C-alpha cells in the first residue's frame, strides 16, 4: 500500500507538472484530448510503478500519451520552440517518465532493495 502511495505521489507530481505546462500554452486548447492524455499518463505511471511483473504492460503503453501530452505542451509556447526541439523534448519526457516508473517498480521489489551507502 505504501509503495503504491509513493507512486501515486509521483503521479500527482507529474500531473501537476503537465497541467502547469498546459496552462502556459498560447494556442487553442482541446480539453478532452489533453485531459484524456493526462489521465492516461497518471494511470500508466501508477500502474507501471507497481512492483509486479505485469507492470511492464502499462509501461509499454505509457510513452504514447506522455509523448503526445508533452508535444502539446512544448508547442505553442512563448518564446516559440522549433518543432524538432519540441519533438525531441516530448520524446525525452516520454522516456524519462517511463524509465522512472520502471525504476520505482524495480526499486520496490523485495529482491531489489535499494542499497544504502555505508
Amino acid at each position, binding site marked *: 500500500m505504501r509503495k503504491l502511495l509513493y507512486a501515486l505521489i509521483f503521479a500527482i507530481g507529474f500531473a501537476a507538472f503537465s497541467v*502547469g505546462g498546459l*496552462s*502556459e500554452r498560447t494556442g487553442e486548447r482541446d480539453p478532452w484530448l489533453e485531459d484524456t492524455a493526462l489521465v492516461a499518463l497518471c494511470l500508466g505511471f501508477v500502474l507501471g510503478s507497481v512492483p509486479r511483473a505485469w507492470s511492464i504492460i502499462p509501461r509499454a503503453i505509457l510513452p504514447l500519451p506522455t509523448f503526445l501530452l508533452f508535444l502539446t505542451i512544448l508547442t505553442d509556447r512563448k518564446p516559440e*520552440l522549433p518543432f524538432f526541439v519540441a519533438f525531441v523534448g516530448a520524446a525525452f519526457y516520454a522516456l524519462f517518465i517511463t524509465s522512472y516508473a520502471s525504476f520505482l517498480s524495480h526499486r520496490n521489489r523485495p529482491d531489489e532493495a535499494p542499497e544504502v*551507502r555505508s
Partner: protein
Amino acid sequence: MALILLAGALGLGAGLGVVILRQSVTALHSLLFGIPWGGHLSDGFSLDWWTVVLVPSLGGLVVGGAAWYIKRRRPRETIDAIEANALYGGRMSLTDSVNLAILTVLSGGCGASVGLEAAYTQIGAGFCSNIGHRLRLRRDDLRTLVGCGAAAAIAAAFDAPLTGAFYAYELIIGNYSIANLAPVLMAALAGTFTARELLGEDLAFATSRAVHVTTTDYLMFVPVGLAAAALGMAVMQGVTATEQWMRRQAIPPWVRPPIGGLVVGIIALIYPRVLGSGHGGIVANLHFTFALPYLSGLVAAKIAASAISIGVGFRGGLFSSSLFLGTLFGGAVVMALNSVAPSMDPDPLVYTLVGMGAVGAAIVGAPITMILLVLESTRDFAATVGVTVGVIAANVAVRRWFGYSFATWRFHLRGLKIQGAEDIGWIDSLTIGRIMRRDGKTVPTEMSVAAMRKAFPLGGVPQLFATEGGRLVGTIDPADLWSPDLGGIPEEVSAGDLMVPIAAWLLATDNLQSSLKKFSEHKLEILPVIDGPDNLQLLGYLTEAEALKSYSQELERHRSDMIGEARLFSTAITPES
C-alpha cells in the same frame, strides 16, 4: 574576549567570501545567459531555447570534470560544518571547502537548480576552522568558531544577522548558550556589515506592504504548515530516490552532471524559473500572484530540477530551493482557498511567507532561523507571528513523521549516526590509551603460586596478567593465590594452572564507548589493553569503574564548557587536565 574579537575579524573574512562567491555566480549568469547584472536566473527572463538546454549541460561537463579531478587528488569526502562539529571537534579542511565552493559556483553559474548557501557556509566555516586550528584553540572554541563562520556567511547572504546567528545555533553548533552568544553574534554582524559595505543594503526578501492577518488565517496556518511538512518530506525522499536511480545507471560519475544538466534544461523549456537557486523567483512570488495550475506545475518542476541537480552530482544545497518551493506552495494555497472559500479573502503575501518559512523549516531543519529570516526580511511582526505558527506545525510534523532534516537525512543515508551538530565526536577522541593504567603486573605462566604470593601481597594489585614468551595468555585474580581450594601446594601450582585464558581485550586506540560495551558483554571488571591481536603485548589495563568515571568526567566537562562555566558540576580532574 579574545574569542569574540577573533570571531568578529573572521566574520569580516567570511562576509567577503560570500560577496566573492555571489558576484562570481552573477558574473557567470550574465556571461552565459545574458542576464542583466544584478538580475537572477529565476526572475523568468525570456531565454533562447538553446541557451536553456545547452548551458546547464555544458556546465555540467565542466562540473563533472572538475569534480572528477578533485576526487582524484583528494579522494576523501568533504566534511561540512555540521559533520565537523558533530564528529571532528570543528576540524575542517580549507582546501576541501574552497574546492566545494568552486564546484558550487560552477553549478549555480551554469543554471543547476541548487542553492549557494551550502558553499557560503562551507567557505565561512572552513576559513574559521582553519584559523582556529592554527591558533590551537580548544575543541569547544573551535566548534564555536565554525558556527561563527557559518553565521557570518548566512548573515551576509541574506543581510540578516539574527538569521545567520540562529542558523549557527540551530544547525552548526547544535545549541544556544550565553558562552557562544557574543562570538556568534559578533561574527554575524561583521558578515552582514561586510556585505552591506560591498553590495549595499539588500534585504533578501523585502516586501512592499504590511500583511493583513485574521484569526481564521492563524488557524489556517496549522494545516498549511502540516502540508508544507509533507512537501518537505516528499522533496527529501525525491532527492534520495533520484540519487539511487542515477547510481543504478551504469554511467561514470563525471558524465552524470552533463546528463543531469540536459534534463534540467529540458525541464526549463517549460518552466524556465527552475534554473538557478530561486532567489529571483522568491521575490517575484512575494510581489505577484500566479495561477494555481502554473504554481502547482512549478512546484513539481522545481522539486524535480533540484532532485536531479543534486542527484547527478551538481554541488549545492536546498536552502534557497526550499524557500522558493515554499513561496510557490504558499501562493498555490492562496489560489486554492480563493477558489474553494472566496469569502476568506486570504492575503497572498502572508500565505506566501508562511509557505516559505514552513517548507524551509521542514527541509533545512532550522525553525527559529526561518522565523527570523522572515522577521528581518519583512520587518513585519504580524507576518512573523503567522510564519511562526506554520513553522512550528511543519517542524513538529517532520520530527514526528520523518525525524530528519535534509542534512541529517543525508548523514543517515551515509551511515553516520548524526542527528545534529551536537558534539558526539569527543567520545571517539577519548581513547583507551589516554585513560588506561600502565602499571599492569605480568607473571610468566611457569611462575609458582608461592613466588607470586611473595611478589604480590594480598590486596596489592587488582589483577595479574599471565604471559608466555612475552605474549599475554590469561588473567589471574590475585585473591585466587590465597584461596584455600588451591588444589596443590603453592610451590607446585603455577600461574598457568591458575590463569583464566584471555577472553577479551582492549586496544589502546579503542574508544571509551566500545570499551564499556565490552565490559558489559563479557561481564568482566578488568580488561587488559594490548598493542594488537597479533603481538598480544600488554600495554596496561582498564577497570570498568575507571572507564565509567572517565566517561562521566568527560561528559561533565563538555556540559560545563557548553554552558560556559568551567567545572560547574564538580571539581573532578579529567584525563586531559
